[in-house]
Structures are given as structure tokens and as C-alpha cells.
């Protein structure tokens, strides 16, 4: 088997995640989909690092995880306060971004 398949898998997961972001209204689920996309990236990074035979890819993936962790913390905090504010976690309810 050609390990390039990992990349295909990553692409697939990423796309699914993106589609999820677009389809779901529940902020939390949207957020999960973002995580999914991040993970897909990580997978491809790892695969790359294996291809090139150096660890930089893994390092990047590592940083990605860290950043993802930070992002989740803040993001979930935002969601919580949003829920507190308007008793809903739907992203469509925050639609004041129009003229």
C-alpha cells in the first residue's frame, strides 16, 4: 500500500469537517468539525514527516495540537458565555453581521 493514502484520508476528513462546519447550526458541533479539520491536517503533516524522513512535520503537528488546545479553551468559553447570554448555542442566532 502506498502511504499516500494517508493524505487522501486526511483530505477526506478535512472535507467532511468543512462540510460539517457549513451544515451544522449548533456551535459546539461546528467547533467539533473544526477540530476534525485540524486533526486531518495533523494526519497529513505526520504523513509528510514520514515521507521526508525528518521530524519537522511532527513538530508542526505538535504545535497545531497546542494551538488547537488553546483555541478550544477560548472557543468553548465563548460558546458558554453566548449560551448564557441568549440561551441558545445556534450560530444562526448570532446573525447581526449585516447592514
Amino acid at each position, binding site marked *: 500500500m502506498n502511504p499516500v493514502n494517508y493524505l487522501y484520508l486526511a483530505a477526506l476528513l478535512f472535507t467532511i469537517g*468543512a462540510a460539517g*462546519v*457549513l451544515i451544522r*447550526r449548533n456551535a459546539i458541533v461546528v467547533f467539533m468539525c473544526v477540530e476534525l479539520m485540524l486533526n486531518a491536517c495533523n494526519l497529513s503533516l505526520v504523513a509528510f514527516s514520514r515521507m521526508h524522513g525528518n521530524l519537522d512535520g511532527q513538530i508542526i503537528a505538535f504545535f497545531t495540537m497546542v494551538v488547537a488546545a488553546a483555541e478550544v479553551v477560548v472557543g468553548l468559553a465563548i460558546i458558554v458565555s453566548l449560551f448564557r447570554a441568549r440561551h441558545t448555542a445556534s*450560530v*444562526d442566532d*448570532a*446573525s*447581526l*453581521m*449585516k*447592514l
Partner: protein
Amino acid sequence: MENLIALLVAAPLLGAAVLLCGGRRLDRAGHWLGTLLAAASFGIGAVLFFDMVGKDAGDRALHQKLFSWVPVADFQADIAFQLDQLSMTFVLLITGVGTLIHVYSIGYMEHDERRRRFFGYLNLFLAAMLLLVVADNYLLLYFGWEGVGLASYLLIGFWQHKPSAATAAKKAFLVNRVGDIGLSIAIMLMFTTFGTFAFGPVLGAAEGASEGKLTAIGLMLLLAACGKSAQVPLQSWLGDAMEGPTPVSALIHAATMVTAGVYLIVRSGAIFNAAPDAQLVVTVVGAVTLLFGAIVGCAKDDIKKALAGSTMSQIGYMILAAGLGPIGYAFAIMHLVTHGFFKAGLFLGAGSVMHGMNDEVDMRKYGGLRKYMPVTFVTFGLGYLAIIGFPGLSGFFSKDKIIEAAFAAGGAQGWILGAATLLGAGLTAFYMTRVMLMTFFGEERWRNKATASPAEPDVEPAAQTHGSHSEPHPHESPKSMTIPMIVLAFGSVFAGGFFAIGDRFANWLAPVTRFEHPHPPISVPVITGATIVVLLLGVAAAYLQYGRKPVPVVAPRGSLLTRAARRDLLQDDFNHVVLVRGGEHLTRSLVYLDHSVVDGVVNGTAASVGGLSGRLRKLQNGYARSYAVSMFGGTAILIAATLLMRAV
């Protein structure tokens, strides 16, 4: 001596400036100042005249260049004066009659609170008119030409609160403007033909130019003359101009301004001599107008309008004479001067009558006034005799000469013109007799019937004196008014004889206008006889109609011609229908077009852009997810693009 010329113009100009800018504090002395300056200008004119007489005929012309006016490349216009015999004649006429009418106005305008301004305008007119006649190039003449137009505009509309007056003033100015197109085009033609438009060079080189150009120039000058001198087809304004105060009608619309056209043609004699076609047209215009004016004069019941028609007709004589070339120039000017005297006199007389009759202008409401205003009666009578050409008086000499010259034009042209002038003489006799009879003879039609003045109560200052509109109390006018009338009467009696004896006047002008003796196909006494017969016929006819039978107070319907003549032979109706209505429609449709089409295109574009952006605006629905979709799609497109780039 030369420097006096400038002074000649400056004096009344100063008067105008002071009176118009001076403000109310001059109200009490203003009219005296105006009269004084007019008189001063007359004095200067006299001095110059005697100086001129002192010289021998050859070098009598004076020249004075003040400064260069508009110098651009070849186009060199100077403020420069030329005073030769022709100009001198006019200077004396203008300042002389002008001064008299200033004096007259002192009395006539006594009760008008704007008398100061009236005198200011009069002075302004004098200055412009003098500038017109002493200018030494056509552009400066144009300056004066429009100047008198302005003065006439201001004076016709002097009683601006009367809409009729304002309209008449506007009409006069506009019709004159049409004429002015002629003058300006003539000047341009001169510039392109001769490279200059100063009298000396142009007239000197006239023969050199092609006849076509000269004819064009001539016709354009004629157009200008028609405008200013109220000749057909631009005569329509003169009748309405009678809305102005009577002294104005006397000075501007009888004696001086309206004769400027004659001056222009005579002054440009050299050009016309070399352009026979133009001359022919001039004579035709003159002939037509003299009959036109006479007919109109026969039908009008408004005394001033009747006199206006007569003025038209008399100027027709002058224009006709001027069109005859060297044989006519001198007589044209001569008739102009004599006409200046008697017509001014007649108008002043008419003014005096109105003054005594609560500003009633309808002759049908006059009658039998000779007992009440003797001086007016006598002076008016003398003017009357003069204008109809009663043997021995001014009109006789000057008009007779023109008739002779007309016959002398030669060929069929000569006969036709001669006949026209004769007929005109007869008509003149008729309508003037009519005026005379209706005003001073017959029963007193103003008695025991209220004279409903057509004008508002405060129209003429005189009205305020005899406040009510009930029965007028005819009375003689004050000295300040009668004296000028008497002086003018003297002029109208003796001037003609004085000029005509031994062609004194013709010889005086000869250096300027090249005098030639007319040689009519039939002997002079015969023509004279014919003239006298015709005028007696005219008088008789008038007497039969208005002397024997009582004059109805309400004008009878009259024949078709009469009714047409009352309406200026329908010329105004034509103007109204064709020019005014047509113009209104044109402008209205243009306004619409400008708004809907020219502007509409632009607005349409703007509107469409606005609509498009309005539709695009809907994409901004505020839902993060739909923004995300577009972003996602964008990414996809970017990737596709990069891939394609790579692939290529």
C-alpha cells in the same frame, strides 16, 4: 479745438453719472443740473460749429484719438472721435432739441418723485447719441448705438410699475437687438474685408472690395438701420414705445434716436454707392415704410400712436432718400433736421394737450381745445403745416426735394418711388389734418362724460395734479413747457427755407456725402405742383370726414384696412403668433428634452447601478455560515486555479 469733442460727450455723461449715483439729496436740484449740462454740451457744439464754419470746406473735419480701446493683433479699435459737417449737423440737432426737451421736462415731470432719475436717463441718452454721431469707427458707433438703445429702454419703461410700459421697453430693446446683429455682422464683414472698421480707411477703400461683400455689408447696415429707425420689418416697437413719457417720445422716438439709421446709411454712403443692389433694397424699404407708417397713422386714435406712425413714415422718406445715393443723402439729412424740429414740436404739443386733459390720449375724447390752450394750438398748428409740407414751411422744402430725388432715380424705379413719395405726401396731409381736427376743432367731446383714462391713476404725474378722473379742465401748460414748443415751432417754420435756398445745406454736407443735383425726368415745378395738389386732396379728404361730420366718441368698426391699420397692419399679431408662441413652445420642449433626454441618460445609468448594488446587498445576510460557504468556495476556486496553472 479737438479736445472739445470729448467734452461734448463728457458733459451729459457726467450729468448722468452724478444724477444716477447721486441719490436722493439731488432730488431738488437734479433736473437743473441735467438741463445745465445738456445746455453746456449744446454750447460746446455751437463753439465747434462756428470754429468749423471758420475753416474752408476742405479741412473742416476734426479728429481726436483718446486712447486705444480694444487692441488685439490686427483688430485695432480706438476711442477716437471724428467731427465733420455731418456729425456737426447731428450734434447741433441733438444737443439743441435735447436741451429744449430737458427744459420742457422740468415742467412736464414736475410731480414725478423720480424726476432726478428721468433727467439722468435723458443725459445718458444725450451722451450715447453724441458718441454715436462723433465716433470715428464703426465699433465705437456700435457703442453709442447700443447706448441709445439702453437709454430708450430705460425711458420707455420709465413708469415701470405699468406692465405695458415694461413690456414695451423690453420689446423695443429686443427688436433693436435684432437690428444690432446686422450692425455687428457688418463690422465683422468690414474687418475681414478691409482689416479695419474705421470710417476713413473703410470708406476710402470701399471701391477696392468685391461688390458681393459690399452688398452684404450694405444689407447688414440696412438691417441695423431698420431696427433703430423702425423701418419695415422691424418697425413694430415704435408704436408701443409711446408708453414712455411724452418728452421721451419727442426726443428719442421722433427727433434723434430713430434717425440714427439714416445717419448710419448716409455715413456709409461710400459703401452703398458701390453696391447698387443694396441701395435698391434701401429705397424699397424706405418706400414701403413711408406708406406703411402713413396708413397706420391714418387709423390710430391714440394721438401719440398716430404721431408715431407719422414718424415711421417720415423716416421712410429719409431712408428712401438715403437709398438714392449722392443725389439723396443731403436731402435725407435735411428732412431729418426739419423733421426733428416739427415732429418734436408736435409731440411736445401732444404732451401739452395730454397734460391738460388728465393724460387722455384718445383723440376721440378731445375736440375744440384751441380755445383752452392757444399756445399749444398755434405751435402744434405750425408743426402741422410744416409736416404736411405747406409751401414755405420746412417740410415743404425738405420733402419736396426728396420727391424730386425719388423721381430722379431714373427708369421705372424712379417713377415707382416718385409715385410712392407723392402718395405718402397725400396720406401725411390726411392723417395730420385728422389729428389736427380731432384735437383742436369740432365739439368738445370731453365734456360731461367721464374720461376713463386707460392708465392707472398715478401713471402720469400730471394726473396727480388734477386728481380725479371726472371732467377734465383743459388749460395751458406752464412756461417751461410752452417755450420749447415755441422755439421748435420757429425751427419748423424757417429751417427748411434757410437750408434749401441755394442748396446751402447740400453744399455744407457735400465734402462728406458728395452732393449731386437730381435731374428728374419731369420738370421740378411740375413735381412741386403735383405735391401741393396731392396734399390739398389729403387735407380735403380729412376735412370731409372729420371736419364736417361729428367725430364719434367710440371708434366705428371701419373698413378691413382701417381695422388692420389700427393693429399696425397685423404685424404684431404675426410676431406674436410666429415668434412669441413658437418661441415659447420651442423653449418649453427644450426644457423637457434637457430634463428627460440629456439628463435622463445619466440618471438612468445611475439608477441601474443603484439597483444592481441593491441586489448584491442581499448577499450580506449576516449568517456566518453562508459567509463561510463563499469563503470555502473561494478556496476551492483558488486551488483549482493553482492546479490549472501547474497543469499548464
